[in-house]
């Protein structure tokens, strides 16, 4: 077991290290989030009430769009310099690689989400501090679900011709329940209602996360083959 965790961690570490040196994903995605804010503002108009009503949906639309960019790239770096062969040749259970990539994606999304929430608070003068613990819980559960499917489908589409077309077409319908549950739970949290109100949604998110994780762990070895 410890060997399994170590192998997963070495994938996380490798990706964090290369990200720290290149800063490709983080820089671009943070900038992308800023752009999204403008897009939302322009498409909804100056009326503040409309932004506030649509806020849970807007937040998740932002995360989803950022996620489509981030998750689709997960395995693209591995296509260069025969890295893919390196992953296949790595000893032990291949699902450790999946979990490592998944953790990397969740960390990346955590940064993007923190920035986007901060930008929303700043530009629309909203105060999230009182609802922060609930919000963090919903974001964590929702992001895990998105990333679990996104990482798996990212690996599937990495080798394809029209991957940037196919990846969203596969991910979006699969992500419908996560999106519905996350938006609804976020709405409950942002309205300042007790977290128990959102309990069915949080349970559904938990169940969805579990199912996606299990499918991902069990099937990843078949995806990774050449």
């Amino acid at each position, binding site marked *: 077991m410890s060997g399994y965790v170590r192998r997963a961690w070495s994938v996380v570490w490798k990706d964090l290290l290369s990200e720290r040196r290149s800063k490709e994903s983080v820089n671009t995605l943070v900038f992308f989030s800023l752009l999204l804010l403008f897009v939302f503002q322009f498409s909804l108009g100056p009326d503040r009430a409309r932004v506030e009503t649509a806020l849970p949906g807007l937040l998740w639309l932002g995360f989803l769009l950022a996620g489509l960019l981030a998750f689709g790239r997960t395995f693209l770096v591995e296509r260069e310099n025969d890295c893919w062969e390196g992953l296949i040749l790595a000893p032990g259970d291949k699902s450790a690689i999946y979990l490592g990539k998944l953790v990397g994606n969740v960390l990346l999304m955590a940064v993007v989400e923190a920035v986007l929430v901060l930008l929303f608070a700043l530009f629309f003068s909203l105060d999230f501090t009182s609802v922060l613990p609930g919000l963090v819980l919903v974001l964590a559960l929702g992001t895990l679900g998105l990333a679990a499917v996104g990482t798996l489908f990212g690996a599937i589409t990495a080798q394809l011709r029209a991957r940037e077309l196919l990846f969203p077409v596969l991910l979006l319908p699969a992500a419908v329940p996560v999106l519905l549950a996350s938006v609804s739970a976020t709405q409950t949290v942002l309205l300042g209602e007790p977290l128990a109100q959102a309990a069915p949604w949080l349970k559904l998110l938990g169940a969805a996360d579990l*199912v996606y994780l299990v499918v991902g762990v069990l099937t990843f070895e078949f995806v990774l083959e050449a």
Partner: protein
Amino acid sequence: MPVRALGWLAVLGLVAGIVAAFGYAPREVMQGNVQRIMYLHVPAVLTAYLAFALVFIGSVGYLLTRRAGWDRLALAAAEPGVIFTGITIASGSIWGKPTWGTWWTWDARLTSTAVLFLVYVGYLLLRGMIDEPDRRARAAAVVGILGTANIPIVHFSVKWWRALHQPATILGPEPSPIAAPIALTLFVNWLAFTLLFLYLLAKRTEIARLEERHAE
């Protein structure tokens, strides 16, 4: 040839189904003749579920055994499955216009059926983009398994989503308890659709086998 016999049985069943739907089944009191679209709508969705169950079985079977036959089963079930889901949505729309006054409403069942349709269209698109048979079968199997595992999650999320927004919807067109002639007509049509599906499945499997032999 058993496949051809299956085809003729399906034709026979469909003719009997149409005759029963228009000649035998009574005119529904509330909705009138429009209700007869149910004899297309309900069998189509039941057949679609059968098809997607077979996609799941074929996908798991392929990953476990790596035998091409399982992959052919998944493919041959997925294509008619998407068609039958499309028929379900289209016939439901046509039924909805006169009874609910709208072609589409974001009702729980409508939405989850539409999501199902999108998932398996994505599945077929993915298959179309990979040329190498083993790689295509593996990728499709993973997407097929996740798609099926997702069905209950989609179902509950969409159901709660509607329930939490709108407690009582106007939907619920089924007259209950269903009268015996209506139930019998439904059964005949369901049987006919299942036979038709099995015929399409057999034919599509055969075509896939010939395609593979041709590619070798």
